[in-house]
Structure formats: C-alpha cells, structure tokens
C-alpha cells in the first residue's frame, strides 16, 4: 500500500516525534509543575522563555539551534566532546527541533492540569507523612495524567508537522532527517509530484488523527477505571 519511500518517511516521523515527546516529557512536567505551583522571582520570565518557540518562526528556531548545536556551537562542541552526542544532520537533531518547537504546547497542557490539582489533597498527603517529593509522584503526578496525555498528544501532533526548524537545523536527508513534512515539501515543490505530496499528506493526517483518538480513548479508560 505504501511505497518504500513513504514507509521510510513515516517510520522516521514516528521515531522523531516519539523521541521528541518522550525526551522532553520529564522536563516539560517539571517546568509545568514549577510554573503551576511555585511562586518565585522571574516566573514571568521563565514562562515567556517557554513560550518563545511558539512565537518565533520555526525557521528562526532552527537557525538558533544551528548556532547552538552545530559542531562549533556553544553547546554542540561540549556535547560532542564529552558525550559524543551530535545533533547535526541526524534524526536526533530532528527530534531536538521537534521537541523544542512542541515544548510550549506540552507545558501549557500539563501546567493547566497541575493548576487543577486540589492542593488540599497534597496537604492531606503531607499530613500522612509524605515528603514533598513523594506527594509529587504519588498524588500530583497521577492526578495530572489526563493533562500529561493531552500535552503529549499535542506535542506529538506538533512534532509530526514540524518543518521549518527541522529543515533549517538538520536539512533534508532521506532516511536521516527527511520526515513526512520534509518529504511532502520536496514533492510539493517538484512540478508534477502533487499526487505523491497528497499521499504523504493523507498519511500524516491519518497518523495524527489516530494519535488524537488514542488519547481520547486512554482518557476515557482512565476515567472509567475509577468507577
């Protein structure tokens, strides 16, 4: 049904988006929690920084990533030297770009869920001898599960669609960084390749609708379990 080419792009997109979501999730949860529950100097600033990738054009984000993470970049050099990690032109780089661009959406969803967790339950857990850390992972975290799921789906969808930052940061390399949107773009721009582009477009849509529906189903199951 799908050509090799399409399978490749699909598999890559899935890998990149999944890794982007999985890797940014812990940070996303942490940042969301801090923004929802803590008061500190510079909170507005942190909030703004988190929102930046939403506001900046992805191409600019990709360019900034390039500045930071390329071989001579401020972060790229030490990462390469000390951890052997290289983002340039690799699917890891695509995942990084996707993660950065999707981050504000993920944080917003999770933050809202944290804000809705009843602090009274957290207080109750404290009186039951739980340290703040235990409260976090036994009470707050499970209660924001729906929000985390929503955040993940949103970030996953956004990652699936990510184009500008990816092509700027890691270019368009088949099998490495050519995700569905990049493949789509090439086809759109190639005269006479519209039908290939349309096929890819449909694959992307089906994929993300599946993700949306799956998350709705998970939410419903989670809710029913408790009755």
């Amino acid at each position, binding site marked *: 049904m799908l050509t090799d080419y399409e399978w490749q792009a699909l598999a890559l997109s899935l890998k990149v988006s999944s890794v982007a979501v999985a890797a940014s999730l812990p940070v996303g949860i942490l940042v969301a929690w801090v923004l929802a529950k803590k008061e500190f100097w510079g909170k507005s600033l942190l909030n703004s920084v988190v929102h930046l990738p939403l506001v900046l054009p992805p191409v600019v984000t990709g360019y900034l990533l390039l500045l930071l993470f390329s071989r001579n970049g401020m972060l790229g050099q030490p990462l390469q030297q000390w951890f052997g990690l290289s983002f340039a032109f690799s699917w890891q780089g695509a995942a990084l770009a996707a993660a950065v661009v999707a981050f504000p959406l993920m944080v917003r969803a999770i933050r809202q869920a944290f804000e809705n967790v009843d602090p009274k339950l957290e*207080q109750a857990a404290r*009186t039951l001898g739980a*340290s703040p850390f235990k409260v976090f992972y036994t*009470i707050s975290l499970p*209660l924001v599960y729906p929000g985390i799921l929503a955040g993940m789906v949103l970030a996953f969808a956004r990652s699936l669609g990510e184009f500008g930052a990816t092509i700027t940061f890691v270019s368009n390399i088949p099998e490495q960084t050519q995700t569905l949107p990049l493949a789509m773009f090439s086809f759109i721009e190639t005269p006479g390749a519209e039908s290939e582009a349309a096929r890819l477009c449909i694959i992307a849509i089906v994929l993300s609708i599946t993700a949306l529906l799956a998350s709705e189903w998970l939410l419903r199951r989670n809710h029913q379990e408790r009755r």
Partner: protein
Amino acid sequence: MLSLKISKQLGQCALDFHCDLPGHGVIGVFGVSGSGKTSLINMIAGLITPDSGSITFAGQCFFDGNKGLNLAPERRRIGYVFQDARLFPHYTVQGNLLYGCPKEEQDKLSEVVELLGIAHLLSRFPEQLSGGEKQRVAIGRALLTQPEMLLMDEPLAALDQPRKQELLPYLKRIAKRSQIPILYVTHQQQELLQLVDELLVVSDGQVACQGTLEEVWNSPAMLPWQQAEGVSSLLLAKVMQQDERHGMTPLSLAPECHLWSSEVSLAPEQQVRLKVAAKDVALSRSKPEGTSMRNIVAATITDIEVLAQQQVMVSLNLAEQVIKAQITLWAQQEMKLQVGEQVYALIKGINLQGVAL
C-alpha cells in the same frame, strides 16, 4: 502535653492562642464558625506557619519562631482527618488506607478495617463510596500512619443526620481505645457530650475557656450555645446494677441518691455523663404519687433567675451537683418557690440517657 503559644494574622483575623493541652484523651475544640478552629489545628499540623511563638508536643518542638524552627508536616507524626474526606481518587480504599502506613505496620490494616467496618470497601475507589464511608476511610487512613496525635476537623459536619449517627459509634470506639491525644473540632453539642474529656472554647481567634467538659459546660463561654439549643446541666454518675424486673438502670449521683435511666447498655460501675435539659425538669412541692415519672428526687433550690418570655431558671443542688429546671414564671409564682427551700425535681426516666465515659 501540647504547649501552644502562637500568633498569626490571617487576613482581617488575628489569631493568638496560648494554652497547654493534656497529652491524652479527647480534647474538644469548640467555637462559632470563623473563630479560628481550623486555623489552630492547621498550625499544629504544620499546614499553616504561625507568625511567631512556639508549638511543643511531647517534648518535641514543632515550631519556634525565635529559633526559626519549623518542622515539616510529614515529620510531625500527626494524623489529620479533614471535614471533606480528601481521599485520593486514584487509589482504592486499600491504597488510601496504606498510603501513609509504614511497611512494618501494614499488619495493623485488618485491625483498623475491622474497627471501622470497611472490609467490604477495600477494593473500591473513593468515587464509589457514600459520604459516611469516605469519612470512615479517611479516619482509618489517619490512624494507620501510627500518629502520635490525632486532629479531627469537624469529621461529621459534611454528613447528613443518619450518616452522623452511623459514624459516631466508630468515633467513640476510637476515642475510647486511643492511646494518643485527639483534638476534635466541632460545633455540635451532641458530639462534645459523646466524645470529649477536655474542652477548649475558641472565640475570635483566642482561647475563651479551657477545662474539663463539665467545668466548661456551665461557664459563660458556653452561653451562646446554651441559648440556642436550650440550657442543660451535665451530671456525673456511676452506673449501678440494672433492675431485673423492669430493665431500667439506676445511675448513682451519691449514696442513696440515684436517677433511673432507660439506657440499658451501660455496664455497672461505669462512670457516665448525664445531660439533663432544663426544660425536662419539673418541680413539685409535694411528692406526686401514681405518675409515670420515675425520677422524683428531693433537691434544694440554690438560685432562681427570671428569664425572658415569662420563664424562670431554677438551679437546684442535687447531691452536690447542679441541676437546672426551666419552668414558667406563672408556676414559680403559684408555687412560691424561694432560694433555700427543698422541692422535688421530676424527671422522666426516658429522658435520661447516660453517655459512658
């Protein structure tokens, strides 16, 4: 022993508590809405930080404003039962019960479960419980943390009357068996009578009165409630052997002076508390014969106070305890009652319900 010496400004409301509370028994905390009861026990629990002062419990310092010491709530070893049960919706009942329970104490679960009658609920989620069941689980959860003090903030307030009745016996059981002090916040007289040994009356963010329940009952601090629910007297009595013929129980106030109660479940030699509503006491010059009233006891008038609405409050000395009778002014005038005279106090046995201590 719990020593409090704390002050705190909450919005418009200044709280300032100075008191020493006993290290055992049930200590009632009583006061009108907004008087600061919840804030008080929140400070004890560590959920609110006082502005200054100190809290010391059983030799351990919970809070000291001068030293900048403030023990985290989870390190105070305090069990807290909230008005709203605050069960964790994502844990089953069993999960909730064991949440704060140390591993090595989990064998206590069955004991607590039995005490509270919640064995059949263990695998349910909180959403599937009634209000009363929720509250029982919340109590069990607090007990299972092996606390060294128990705080209960109006644990029955959110329940309707039948649920209240259902839960009270469990609370009594816990109060009786408990080795640790229990601070019990309420504004229900009924709960006080059944549960409390020591009473702290809180008013406007301050301790208005403190002492044993009987001491505080007649003090001016209780006046607002006596007015609302009707004046009553509290008597201490000892249960005597039940009469086999008619099944009633004599409660002895002194040798040769007892009142008959229709309460049958009291064990002999037990100390009981009797609340006698002043409206339930009638007076008679002569000893009436052939009436259904079982309690006709001689008592001496110690005080006569004229109330509003053509009523009179007569205080009587009955075996060195005070008992009050509220009668109409008309009756008092017709009977020409005077302080110092002896009269008969008439009380229907059926209105005397002893509460075991």
